[in-house]
Every structure is written in C-alpha cells, then in structure tokens.
C-alpha cells in the first residue's frame, strides 16, 4: 500500500480549535508526528492515536534550525515512504509561519507521494478575536521579526504591523532560543524610524489551554527592549498614522465614473 501524508493544525487552544477533519485524520493515521505548543496538548494528542511521535527532540539550542526542520521532514517522510498513513499535527495552522509542513508536502509531491494540508486556527485568528482587530479596517502586514530586520521593507504605519517570533529578534545564527536586549534595541531603533517612541504596542499571547489567561500587555514601543518576551509572544503594532488618500487614483476613478454616467444617460436606440 502506498503511504500518504496529511499535515493538520490542531489550533491554539487545546480542544477548542481542532476541526472535525483534522481530528479524524489523526485518529485514522498509522503514525502521527506532533509539534505542540505545550505538554498538555501533546498528551491530549497521545490519547487520539496509538503511535504519536513528538518532533520536539529534534530541537537543540545551538543547532541551526534549518537542519532541525530538515531532520523533522526526513523523519516524517521516512514513514510515508515506508507505506504508512502519516499525519503531521502542528499547533495552530500547519502552514502559517511554519515551514516544516510546506517542506514535507513539497518533497512528498516530488516523490509522487500523496500529501495534503488541512488548515487550523492560528495565533493570527485568535489575535483578531481577542484584540478586536479587523485586518480589513486599515490593512495588516505580518512578518517574521528577524526577516523584518534583515531585509529592507516598505513599512506602512497606517496599517497594523504584526511581528512573529519576536523573542528571536535578530538571531542570524538560527540557533538561539531567545535573543537579548542588544538585539531588541536594533529592532526598536528600526521601528523608531516609523513610529514615535511612546507609540503603544501590544504583547499578545493567546490561550494555550482553557485555564490560561490571554496576554494583551500594552507598552510603549521603547519599553519593548526590557519587556518579558516568550517564544509564543507576538508583537502587535497598531497604526500610528491615518490612511492618506491617493488623490491621483481617486481622480482617475472619478473620470471613469463620469464617463459611465454619460454613457448611461445617452438615449438608447434600437433597430426596429
């Protein structure tokens, strides 16, 4: 029998977010690989299948994460190649700020092995609900924090800016579990080019289990340097400026409107 891979998301809050199809895939799999955000969730998953294998042991401080991720992909694909029905279960959404599932599916497809992804509720989804943010109101951009620092980006301070993995800000070694004050200072200095130092930003943490308290700490941007950041902290930067009308585009659109009105008002002739 040929093997297969399904990457599923289990959501952020244990039990509350898992979709029926994700649960069913887990229950019917022969091997389940897991990357959960807390021990409770890992234990919860263990009860859904007889063969649950945590990918956590691949992590090691000081080890390049690229190697870690490739090793995880290989562990998953080895079982698929062996003809097993494999599920890789990730907390949140398996494909949101998460390269392992994308890499595994891509590689499986190259080898002509069936591989698909089922979405999950991500930290992003929780953030919109918990903080009352509608990304459609002003627009919203998301970046991995170090990527945001390493590359020149066009920052739009009239939209929300969400920075993921902020606890790893500026880590060029890809081997740290957290970075310190000096690295964060660089991030803050970069942000200060676009925002005032007293601009209010939010340190956000969604509930991992039902008894957790959601964190939405509002601090000044300059306070980020000494703030308590965890691996699951997301930095939310609300807009500091109003959206500026694009007069050129608005004028072009007004011209089209006028032409359309003229055309619609023209007497209609029909052939008899």
């Amino acid at each position, binding site marked *: 029998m040929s093997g297969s891979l399904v990457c599923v998301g289990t959501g952020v809050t244990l039990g509350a977010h898992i979709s029926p199809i994700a649960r069913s895939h887990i229950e019917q799999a022969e091997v389940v690989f897991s990357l959960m955000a807390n021990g409770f969730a*890992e234990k919860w998953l263990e009860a859904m299948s007889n063969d649950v294998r945590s990918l956590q042991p691949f992590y090691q401080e000081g080890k*390049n994460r690229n*190697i870690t991720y*490739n090793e995880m992909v290989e562990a998953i694909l080895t079982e698929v190649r062996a003809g097993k029905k494999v599920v890789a279960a990730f907390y949140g959404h398996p494909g949101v700020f998460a*390269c392992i599932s994308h890499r595994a599916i891509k590689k499986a497809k190259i080898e002509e092995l069936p591989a698909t992804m089922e979405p999950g509720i991500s930290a992003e989804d929780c953030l919109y609900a918990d903080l009352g943010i509608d990304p459609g109101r002003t627009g919203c951009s998301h970046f991995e924090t170090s990527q945001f*620092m390493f590359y020149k980006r066009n920052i739009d301070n009239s939209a929300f800016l969400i920075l993921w993995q902020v606890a790893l800000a500026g880590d060029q070694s*890809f*081997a740290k*579990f957290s970075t310190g004050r000096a690295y964060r200072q660089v991030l803050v200095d970069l942000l200060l080019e676009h925002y005032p130092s007293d601009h209010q930003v939010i340190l956000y943490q969604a509930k991992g289990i039902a008894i*957790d308290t959601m964190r939405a700490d509002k601090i000044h941007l300059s306070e980020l340097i000494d703030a308590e950041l965890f691996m699951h902290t997301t930095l939310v930067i609300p807009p500091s400026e109003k959206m500026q009308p694009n007069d050129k585009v608005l004028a072009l659109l007004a011209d089209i409107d006028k032409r359309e009105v003229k055309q619609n008002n023209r007497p209609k002739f029909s052939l008899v």
Partner: protein
Amino acid sequence: MNKVIQVLETMATDAYLVNKENMTTFLTTAEITTEQQQAITEKNADKLAETIADLPKIISYSQVLPTEDDQQEDDNQESDNESINKLLASSF
C-alpha cells in the same frame, strides 16, 4: 485519556462551562485530585503541570526561518556556518 487532560478539553469545548457556577459543579464531579481542582480554579497552569508525572517537555516553538530558499531545504549536511554564510550572502 488522562482525566485532567479530559477536563481541560471539556472546559474548552462546552459552552455551558463558561458560567462560573456550572464550572464549579463540573470540577467537583470531575475525577481529578483536589490539587488539580485547586490548580484549575486558580488558573495556574504550572501548578497543574506539576501534578502530571509524565507531561511531555516543550523545547521550542519556532517553525520558520527568517530567510528560506530551495537550496536550504536540501542542505542537511553542511555545517551551520556554511549555511548561514550562504544565507547572508544571498540576503544582502
């Protein structure tokens, strides 16, 4: 399933338990220890974790790199420094 995990799952899936009184009644009938009941009432996840002997350890959360290319996805063998240098050379 471990009883405490079952309780956490029920708490997260049953809207009836949003009500505090319902929650208290539920906890007293749940087959968990007094210590676990207390930890849940106090919303103390660390204390609750201590009551489960074989709770798996979470080492990291990260699942994404700041920069990625196809080459990297195949670079299992090369040393950390080599891959970082290559990444940085391609990024700047």
